């Protein structure tokens, strides 16, 4: 067999569940991934991402449901026959092998079995790409945490696999290196067009790498969509709050149908949403939660926005920007402005809430009912 297995395969989860005693790690996961797609799994700690990978790789047996790879039901297939490469969250390096041997190990597998020199050459090549070529003769316990992580990554990469599972493969690397690795992964993906399932906590990573992002919460898939859609059209309050560096500003309220149009009212705010004959009618009377990202809260009027009087009580520098916290009646708003915008704690300012950053969520179900300042016809998804 050639050393390039690649050209990705389709993956499908059908109603896959896993529980540990009373705790549900994964609840009826339905997820289809196209061949060659790069999908990131994102979600809070303990939400079932690793469980998903483990079930896909065959390390865990699901309690129910079916897993298909390349259209074939692999639910009962042992890991070594699924043709999957994986980076373990805890690395799982072979302690008795040097870095070089660790890297070359997958190439010794039956059916892949490269001649030793070829395998070593391949391993060295991958090591060079990962910047660990000076460590080839060391044992795992003789290298640093980040170096270990790179070995783990290298061991998965070296196979040129068609399906590729990565569980937070860059979490212990410095920013500079992480960026480079990201680029290399992207290149790899393009070269092999393998299917990649990627777990990460770094939204930037997920955004820049993925074709689609899957958001988990407590074992349940919340939304699967392109990075842009996830960011712009979150399916519900959870997704909206989870994406983005900081949480949205959330205000509970209700949509009022007044003579002069539809209004969001709550937390002392009253924001005009649209005229009487607009699509907002569908939402009239609903209890909703308003959400607006810090990016949508500024101190200068920009585009279409609502002004809200507030008093600043904290300003934090954040690189080229600054984060400000301001109290508007009962609501504390967090906003993000350019570092050179002159706001000082204690000042009274007019906060400008950008309409294009306005989201409304059903107060009961959390479902999104208005996104980017516009009402949605039906409920999303």
């Amino acid at each position: 067999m050639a050393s390039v297995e690649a050209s990705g395969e389709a993956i499908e989860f059908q109603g896959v569940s896993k529980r540990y005693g009373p705790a549900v790690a994964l609840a009826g996961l339905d997820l289809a991934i196209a061949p060659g797609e790069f999908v990131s799994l994102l979600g809070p700690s303990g939400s079932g991402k690793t469980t998903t990978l483990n079930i896909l790789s065959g390390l865990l047996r699901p309690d129910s449901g079916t897993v298909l790879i390349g259209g074939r039901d692999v639910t009962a297939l042992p890991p070594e026959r699924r043709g999957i490469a994986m980076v373990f969250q805890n690395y799982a390096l072979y302690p008795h092998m040097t870095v070089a041997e660790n890297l070359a190990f997958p190439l010794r597998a039956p059916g892949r079995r490269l001649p030793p020199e070829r395998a070593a050459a391949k391993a060295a090549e991958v090591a060079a790409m990962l910047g660990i070529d000076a460590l080839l003769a060391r044992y795992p316990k003789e290298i640093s945490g980040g170096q270990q992580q790179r070995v783990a990554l290298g061991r998965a990469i070296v196979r040129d696999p068609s399906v590729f599972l990565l569980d937070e493969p860059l979490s212990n690397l410095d920013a500079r290196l992480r960026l480079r690795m990201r680029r290399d992964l992207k290149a790899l993906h393009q070269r092999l067009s393998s299917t990649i399932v990627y777990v990460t906590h770094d939204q930037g990573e997920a955004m820049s790498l993925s074709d689609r992002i899957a958001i988990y919460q407590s074992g349940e898939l919340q939304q699967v969509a392109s990075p842009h859609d996830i960011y712009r059209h979150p399916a519900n309050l959870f997704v909206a709050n989870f994406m983005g560096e900081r949480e949205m500003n959330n205000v509970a309220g209700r949509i009022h149908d007044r003579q002069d149009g539809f209004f969001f009212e709550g937390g002392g705010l009253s924001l005009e949403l649209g005229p009487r004959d607009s699509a907002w009618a569908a939402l009239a009377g609903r209890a909703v939660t308003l959400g607006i990202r810090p990016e949508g809260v500024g101190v200068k009027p920009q585009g279409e926005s609502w002004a809200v009087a507030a008093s600043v009580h904290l300003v934090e520098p954040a690189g080229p920007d600054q984060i400000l916290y301001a109290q508007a009646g009962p609501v504390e708003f967090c906003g993000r402005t350019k570092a050179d915008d002159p706001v000082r704690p204690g000042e009274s300012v007019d906060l400008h809430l950008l309409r294009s950053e306005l989201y409304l969520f059903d107060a009961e179900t959390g479902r999104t009912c208005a996104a980017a300042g516009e009402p949605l016809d039906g409920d999303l998804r």
Partner: protein
Amino acid sequence: MLARPVRRLLDVGVSALIVTVALFPILWGFLSSFKPSAEIVSFPPRLFPSTITFEHYRAIYDTGILHYLLNSFLVSAGTIALCLACGTIGAYALARFSFRGKTLVTLVIIMVMSIPIPSLLIPTFTWISDLGLINTRLALVLVYTAYQLPFVIWILATYYQSLPEELEWSAAIDGYGKLATLWKIVLPLSWPGMVAATLFVITFAWNDFVVAVVLLSSEETRTLPIGIYNYLGFYGRDWGPLLAAAMVSIVPLLAIFLVLQRYFVAGMTGGSVKG
């Protein structure tokens, strides 16, 4: 890969073979211990007793097997306690410290295991007599410990070395000294090694005849193997009580194994360190 039913069948077949080979001679002895004396050595031999008799068990009970059992128990317990007490700390030193003479200590371990025990018997007897320990259970405990300790240390040290050292580091950071770490972290994680070592030491202490017969001289201190051996009497072999006693002697060891076997678990260090 074989189809499931075939595998199953193969499993059962192999299991049956193992059980048969391991058990047959014992079963033979077990069944014989219920035969009347005349029937045990009868020819042609018969597997099952024609009538089941407990006379041999009564006989060993009458000769005071309970007392022998008690002695054996005391000696074994003492030996294992001493072996583990000295073995764990010794093994820990060997596994985790680097010190001058480490190779020498390893050599001592190998050396002690290399010595044929019979060659030590006479000097040991003299020496134990000089110490005034002759005919005491303590003497047995000490000598058994001396014979088994090197092996115990070796097993445990090897096991300790397979544990992630970071856990001990972590305990040190958390404020625990070496011995406390050994006790709280290393020991609970080395159960399989301890179980193996315990089993070997107890089996030796429980079954040793050679040393016991030399060092013990009274009914009072007599251990079970001497009791068993005594049925190889001057007036011929008393198979019935001999086998009965042997069967009885198996029971405690098997019980211990079954109890300890619970601790034979894999992946004890799972989830502890990344790497």
